[in-house]
């Protein structure tokens, strides 16, 4: 069976601008796939092509087994879409919007009567269901948007920057909802984000996009380990400094550290930390402070592009 999302050489050009440049994607059934990149990288353009809202200039893509260009209607039946900015009519109530969405997806009135309250309950909006969306907070709008995208029980769910502009509490609540959906229903989720933490927390696999091209792809752990070993930093009493340095540099490559601190690349990953501490203890060295610094997705992004995603500066 085809993967729920497959793209080959998918390209979109606007005049002279190549917004998405020949990207290839293969996303597995039941996977949460993170599409990470800065503003203007091409994330939303890619999503709009995969959700049939924008015609590709080149290449091809299949979603839920159907071609996005020639079988757009079939694709739309199988996908749920929550686009950026939670575009919801502020004059309508949550209930009215869910019912409208149900009709648009060909759900019978009887089924909609059962499903709409269920979805409102799932996203914690039962009490607000009859209130106009204009009175909702940003977090409530996003949750309603998520509920709207689930009315027809889609095989594939596209979430385009679902937490942009949300406060930390609402963000975490939405992450939890996406996790639950993926675990309980097995929905394949294609998530675009510019937040490293979001991709790290939610996605089983990530593609990093920059200037319309995918520059890295893999699981967060694999991508981070590809950048290099985690850094172990140890503070010891001054009298033990030299001997501690000697012990540690025998176990890993020395890394820059502030005065009075020893830092090494922890070859063998985080599990090697016990080996280092045991070696120091064997030499009767008193350890005052231990710090382990794993490479972040920002390091991965920097390694791939020469720029930082967070802070936006050059490396």
């Amino acid at each position, binding site marked *: 069976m085809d993967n729920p999302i497959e793209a080959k050489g998918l390209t979109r050009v606007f005049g002279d601008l190549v917004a998405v440049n020949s990207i290839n994607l293969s996303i597995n059934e039941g996977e949460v796939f993170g599409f990470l990149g800065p503003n203007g990288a091409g994330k939303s353009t890619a999503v709009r092509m995969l959700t049939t809202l924008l015609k590709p200039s080149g290449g091809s893509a299949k979603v839920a087994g159907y071609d996005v260009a020639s079988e757009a209607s079939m694709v739309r039946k199988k996908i749920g*879409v929550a686009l950026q900015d939670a575009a919801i009519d502020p004059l309508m109530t949550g209930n009215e919007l869910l019912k*409208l969405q149900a009709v648009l997806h060909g759900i019978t009135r009887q089924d909609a009567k059962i499903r709409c309250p269920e979805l409102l309950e799932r996203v914690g909006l039962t009490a607000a269901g009859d209130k106009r969306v204009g009175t909702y907070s940003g977090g409530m709008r996003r949750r309603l948007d998520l509920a709207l995208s689930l009315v027809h029980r889609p095989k594939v769910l596209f979430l385009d920057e679902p937490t942009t502009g949300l406060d930390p509490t609402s963000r975490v609540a939405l992450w939890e909802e996406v996790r639950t959906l993926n675990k309980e229903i097995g929905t394949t989720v294609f998530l675009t984000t510019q937040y490293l933490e979001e991709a790290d927390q939610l996605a089983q696999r990530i593609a990093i996009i920059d200037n319309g091209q995918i520059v890295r792809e893999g699981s967060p752990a694999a991508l981070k380990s590809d950048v290099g070993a985690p850094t172990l930093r140890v503070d010891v009493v001054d009298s033990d400094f030299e001997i501690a340095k000697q012990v540690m540099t025998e176990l890993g490559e020395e890394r820059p550290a502030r005065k009075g601190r020893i830092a090494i690349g922890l070859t063998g990953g985080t599990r090697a930390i016990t080996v280092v501490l045991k070696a120091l203890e064997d030499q009767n060295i008193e350890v005052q402070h231990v710090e382990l610094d794993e490479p972040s997705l920002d390091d991965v992004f920097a390694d791939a592009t020469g720029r930082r995603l967070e802070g936006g500066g050059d490396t």
Partner: protein
Amino acid sequence: MTSLSSYWSNQWLITAAITKRGLLRMRRLPSLLIPSIIMPIFFVIAFSGSFSSVVQLDGYDTNKAVNWMAAWAILQGSAFSGLGGGGLTATDLENGFFDRLRAAPITPASLIAGLVGYSITRATLPTTAVLIVSFGVLDADMPGGILGFVIAYFTAIAIAAVMSLFVLGIVFKMKTLKSLAVAQVVMFSMMFLSVGQAPLEAIEGWLYHVAKYNPITHVIRMGRQGFLGDVTWAGTQPGLISIALLMAGAGIWARGCYRKVDI
């Protein structure tokens, strides 16, 4: 066969749901209605009073200015109501709601029909308001009887549908609320360059030629005939043909422009 009838039944439900959404918005935002109801009432009152003696000229075929102006005001109000679907779509395009509709498995025809449905339902309100004022306050006549009212409503709905399709095309092309200003200029030019205010006999120069061949002229004559005399097939047929041609042209225009939405 069953799946085909289920398909059409589903498309009909989608069209009805989109119309219903428009009407719901109108109920929650009554200010949307003010221009399309107040303007035609103002027209019929002001023009019937100011031009009360103009009906003595040849071609008016009535002795009361209100009989002439009521039909004109109804069609102005209906044309303005035709902006409704376009206005709703322009708002949806600007705030992104239109993407939600496009991402659903619905046909463009169902979506456009739903928006036209909203516009024509809106058009019945100014039509009714003008008729109430014309007959209740301005002492209008309807020598065409019930058929005169039927043809007046039919013409109002048809004009609203044509204008709605035409405006939707402009909105799909421009994707902004500003497109409504462009649409109004073209729409009202078509209305005013017809026999809306004066019969052909009273129009001179280039305006005469434009009004003579403007299809809206036939449509207005069709809608007005009950106010001036009997409703006849001869008075209805050119209007029906014009409406059919205008609907076909505006429908092709709207559908063609819909394809440009994603560019």
